[in-house]
Every structure is written in C-alpha cells, then in structure tokens.
C-alpha cells in the first residue's frame, strides 16, 4: 500500500477521508504537506515554508472548498520553521473559516516569534516566524481547547475530546481526538522528543509522524527543544502503536511514506542509536557555524583520501592494461563514491552563494559520510585498497558523524606510545622489497585471479619510494593523550603532503617542552603552504585542539611542522 503524491486518494482504513500529499524535496528548508478532505473539514497538515508549495496548497484547498464548503483546519506537527512558516499564508476563498491547531508549547513558541525554538535562526535569509493566532492549543494544562471544542463563526463547533489510551501506562502517549463527521476522526498523539511540542496524527490506517524519524540524526539531535528522555519514551510508545494491525502507512515530515512495519523497524534502529545520546551537546547558531567549518574541512580531507584511494587503483591498472583492452574490474563502486563527493561538493558550493542554510551543508555531509561508510564496508574494499588509507578514511567518517551528533569521541581516546607509533610509520614508509612471489605463482593459470592479485599489490604500494623518512631525536618520555591511529593519520598526511611538495628527506623527532610532548617533522626543502591545503591543515589543528594539543608551521626554512601533543589525562571535551 502506498500514497501517490499530488493527487487525491482515499485514506487507507477510512470510508470518507481523502488525502492529497504534497511531498517536498527532502531538505530542512520546507516539509511535506498533507491535505485531507473530511466530511466536515478540510485539514492542512504542516503547510511548510515554501511559497511555491503554499500556492499549490491554496489551489488544492480552494478546489476542495468549491466542491463542498467546510472550515479549513491548519494543523502543525511541531513548531519548526520548515513546517510552520506558511501557516498564515494560504490564499483561500472569501468567507473560508480557517482555524489553526498546534500543541500548546508550539503555540507559545510561535506567539513570541522564538527564533531558537522555531529554528528560524538556521536560515540565512532571516525568515519571519509565523505568529498568527493558534485557535486550538492542544494538550494545554487547563485542557481549555478540549473542553470547549473549536468554535466556528456561525456558532458551529468542532468537537475535540480526550481519549483514554489503550497502551500500557509506562509507554502511554497522551491522545486527543477531533471529530471529522460521518464517524471519521483525527487522533492526535503527543510524541515529544524531536521537540517538546511534537504531535503525531492518525487518520484511518495512516499515521503522520512529523520529524520523529530524524530525531536521532547527527545534526538534528540536540536542536533547541530536543529531549533525550522524551524521545526514548515516545519511541517506545510508537513501537507499541505501530505493532497494531489496523495501521498501514506512516508518513514522515520529509521524504516518502513507509509501511508501518518498515517504519517500526526504522524507529527501532533509531531507538538503539538514541539510547547512547544522553550527553549530546546542544545545537545553537555558534555550534552550527563551527560545524559548517568542520564540514568544509572534512569535505576537503575526505575528497582527497577517496580520490587517492581510487587513483591508486587506476595507477595500478596503467601498468596492467592497455587502452581499449581489459578494464579494471574491481567490485568497488568508484563511480558511486565519485557521485557522492561531487554532489556534496556542489551542495557546499551552493552555500557559499548564500542559497543554503549552514545546517543543510552539515546534514548533506552526514548523508555523504553515511554513503561513503557503506562504500567502504564491503570485503572487497579491504582486498583491493590500501588498508592504511581505508582506515584513515573510515576514522575521518566516524569522527565526523560523532562530532556532528554532539558526542565527545575524545573521551574515548586512549593514550599512545608516540615513539612506537612513529617507528612503525617510518618502517611503513621505507621502500618495500619485492614481496614473496609464491602467491602470484599460485594463481598464474587463472588470468582473472592473477590480475586481481597484481592490482591489489600495486594499489597498496606506497608511491613515496623516492622519499626517505627517518626517526631521529626520540626523547625518553613517549606517552601522550592521543590515540595511536589518530597520531599516525595526522603525521602520515603531513609526510605525504611534504613529499608531494618536493621533499625527498623528512626527519621526525620527539621532544618535550613545558611538560608537553612535541613531534617535529622537518623537510629537506621549503614547501609552499598550499601544498598541504589550508582546510586539511585546519582539520588536523582542530582535531588536536579538541584533545588539548595544537599544530603549527614554523616560519624558518626548511619547512617544519610542530605537533604539540595532548597531555595524558588532559583530554578536553
């Protein structure tokens, strides 16, 4: 069972309700809207925040009104700008009775044009908050709206009642019911978590749940009004509700509908994720601006890493295949990876032209990071690509998702023995002697296996054979509050950049200064600052900074980088 967008259709499980879904392109700019034609009212659920969408809604409602004149009830699933902005902007025929309904907390946010709780601050074009009156404030402490119903112009009333929930008390969701005529009704459940004013709406066998399915997403959890305890409790309640056979379809505030089984599965996964979100850093304008800068740096670093990973395979194929003959056939979706990064880069560029909210760029980064994680998850990735590069890419993706979510990955940072990390790195950078050929000989009769193995061997060979890296001046003290892999990643990236910038000999050393352990990298020549890339360097500095360390480039020639490593037990959040 599914819903077709932009057309009228019977609401599943109802006799006389019809629905006209308007599905917006998923973004934080504007939400989906659902128009419902009922015997005694026309409902507009979440008008959204797009002028084009508002015109469409107005046309559809006007036509429905012409067919049968009824009051129009605008209902908000929550107070966020992308759902509520246009609640007072519909153009309807003269004489239309329009009433707005929302949770009491949403009404208070909108009345005082609260830019934080409505999230209006996210949008660089500074949109106004819709502060038109909310005629029915659902779930208010005095239950005034429920007691009196919704009064219309000619003295008519839309009856609103409290309903006793049939769910077990520990996961009960507060519930109200609006009579829609002909025995049809709209059930409204208080489902806080994403915001304190979130409600879910049931019509027949269809449930509209607003932005709940996204409440644990990196970049969205921690927004003003988000609440971990409420979210977990709501998810428990919805889990019970979605288990009932009389529900068929679930409609989120963004994107396509899901079957209740699929939504239940999604929400269960989300509940698992949400369980650990107890110490999420709150999201605000400053943090979003910081995340946007971090996202730019992440894009630069990730693009470089994935281009290098793919490039190594292409470089291997140069030696294996002639043009027009056999092609590289590794089972890794290189085009898909390229597409993800291209789309992400274009999206980030759009921000620089002031057409995209900062948080959109961050959320796009989350989407790209998840796609790239999937691309790296296959067994063939480890078989064909350089494991050290794959590890670096995986760690950057994990870091990014943790940081955007507001989790302190740093508290889990275990200390490393720095001299040992550097010694292993130097050994890895040393020119490799030709490895045992027996493996190749074993598959020599099978051309495909032979080429696969050769591709793999070529792809993992370090291209820095012409560079020597020495570990000199190791001081006795060697422990620092940074994980071995993270230190290795940063130093390796710097060595690669120095080598690409023309260095042929790089010296590594450790020393101490005012109780801090330092790592010094010195090239045998001066390398342009742009060889490393300012954003990538900023990313390493930011990561070290989170831990209580820093990175600096010394002014003297030849090029020297100095890493001040975090002290033991000195990690900061």
């Amino acid at each position, binding site marked *: 069972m599914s819903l077709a967008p932009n057309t009228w259709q019977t609401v599943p499980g109802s006799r006389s309700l019809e629905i006209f879904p308007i599905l917006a392109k998923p973004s934080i700019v504007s939400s989906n809207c659902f128009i419902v034609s009922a015997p005694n009212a026309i409902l507009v659920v979440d008008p959204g925040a797009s002028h084009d969408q508002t015109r469409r809604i107005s046309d559809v409602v006007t036509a429905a009104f012409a067919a049968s004149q009824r009051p129009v009830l605008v209902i908000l699933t929550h107070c966020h700008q992308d759902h509520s902005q246009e609640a007072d902007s519909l153009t309807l025929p003269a004489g239309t009775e329009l009433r707005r309904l929302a949770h009491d907390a949403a009404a208070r946010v909108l009345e005082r044009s609260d830019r934080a709780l409505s999230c209006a601050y996210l949008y660089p074009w500074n949109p106004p908050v819709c502060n038109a009156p909310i005629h029915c404030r659902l779930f208010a402490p005095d239950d005034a709206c429920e007691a009196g119903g919704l009064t219309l112009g000619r003295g008519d009333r839309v009856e609103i009642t409290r309903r006793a929930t049939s769910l077990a008390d520990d996961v009960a969701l507060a519930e109200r019911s609006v009579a829609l005529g002909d025995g049809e009704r709209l059930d409204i459940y208080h489902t806080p978590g994403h915001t304190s004013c979130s409600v879910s709406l049931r019509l027949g066998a269809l449930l509209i749940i607003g932005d709940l399915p996204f409440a644990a997403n990196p970049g969205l959890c921690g927004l003003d009004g988000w609440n971990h305890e409420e979210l977990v409790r709501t998810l428990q309640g919805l889990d019970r509700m979605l288990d009932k056979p009389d529900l068929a379809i679930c409609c989120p505030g963004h994107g396509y509908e899901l079957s209740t089984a699929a939504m239940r599965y999604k929400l269960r996964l989300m509940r698992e994720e949400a369980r650990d979100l107890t110490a999420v850093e709150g999201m605000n304008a400053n943090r979003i601006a910081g995340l946007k800068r971090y996202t730019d740096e992440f894009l630069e670093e990730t*693009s*470089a890493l*994935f*281009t*290098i990973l*793919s*490039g*190594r395979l*292409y*470089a*291997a*194929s*140069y*030696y294996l*295949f*002639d*043009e027009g003959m056999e092609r590289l056939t590794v089972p890794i979706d*290189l*085009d898909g*990876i*390229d*597409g993800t*990064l*291209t789309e992400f*880069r*274009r999206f980030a560029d759009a921000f620089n032209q002031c057409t995209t909210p900062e948080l959109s760029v961050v959320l796009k980064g989350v989407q790209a990071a998840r796609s790239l994680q999937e691309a790296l998850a296959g067994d063939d990735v480890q078989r064909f690509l350089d494991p050290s590069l794959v590890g670096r890419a995986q760690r950057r993706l994990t870091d990014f998702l943790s940081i955007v979510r507001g989790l302190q990955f740093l508290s889990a940072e275990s200390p490393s023995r720095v001299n040992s990390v550097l010694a292993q790195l130097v050994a890895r950078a040393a020119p490799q002697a030709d490895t045992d050929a027996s493996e190749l000989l074993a598959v020599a009769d099978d051309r495909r296996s032979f080429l696969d193995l050769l591709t793999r061997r070529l792809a993992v*060979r370090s*291209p*820095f054979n012409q560079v020597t890296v020495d570990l000199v001046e190791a001081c006795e003290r060697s422990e620092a509050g940074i994980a071995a892999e993270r230190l290795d990643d940063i130093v390796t990236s710097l060595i*690669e*950049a120095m*080598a*690409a*910038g023309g260095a042929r000999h790089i010296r590594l050393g450790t020393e101490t200064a005012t109780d801090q352990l330092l790592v010094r990298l010195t090239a045998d020549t001066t390398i*342009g600052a*742009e*060889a*490393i*890339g300012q954003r990538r360097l900023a990313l390493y500095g930011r990561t070290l900074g989170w831990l209580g360390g820093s990175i600096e480039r010394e002014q003297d020639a030849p090029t020297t980088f100095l890493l001040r490593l975090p002290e033991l037990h000195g990690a900061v959040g």
Partner: protein
Amino acid sequence: MGEFEVTIERLAAMITLHAAGPVDGRTAAALHEPLLAAAAVPNAAVCLDLARVSYISNAGLRVLLLAAQALRARDERLHLAHVPPHIANVLTSAGFTSFVDVA
C-alpha cells in the same frame, strides 16, 4: 562561461589543452573527448594545463589514466602543467607521477 571549459592550442608538435573549472563526475566527460582526441594525434606531444582547475576527483583521474595509456601506445607520456599544489598532492599520493609528468 560554463562550469568547466577546455580550450585547445596547437603549436608545432605540441597540443596544449587549457582546462578551467572542477574536473569531477559531472564534468570529466567534457575533458575526456578533447584529451583523448589529442592523444590520438600522431607525433604530437600532449600537455594539459591545470592552472585553472580547482579540484579533480577520481572521475578526472580516470580521464588522465586513459590519456596516459593512449600516449603510452606511441611511447609518449602525458604532461601536466601548472598543477595546483593540492592536486599535485593527490596525483603523487595516488601514484600517478610514475607515469604522468607533473610540472
């Protein structure tokens, strides 16, 4: 000007392609055709000027690889000129500098 453009200059036995814009999944095709066509010209050296290329993704590297392979068939190498440092970093780290000349 579009987001990516290539202008071609031929001087004696040298064909130089001046690229401008990002070379990624959406634009690599616009480089593929003229670069491979240049690589197919007998007795001509091919140089790709990257001075105005802001970014190169793996789709771009693939086009460079195909041109390098085509040139290898007649014992030539692809020359890259004015390579921005961050792109040189990627080319070196990917191992391309072993079969492509970077200046």
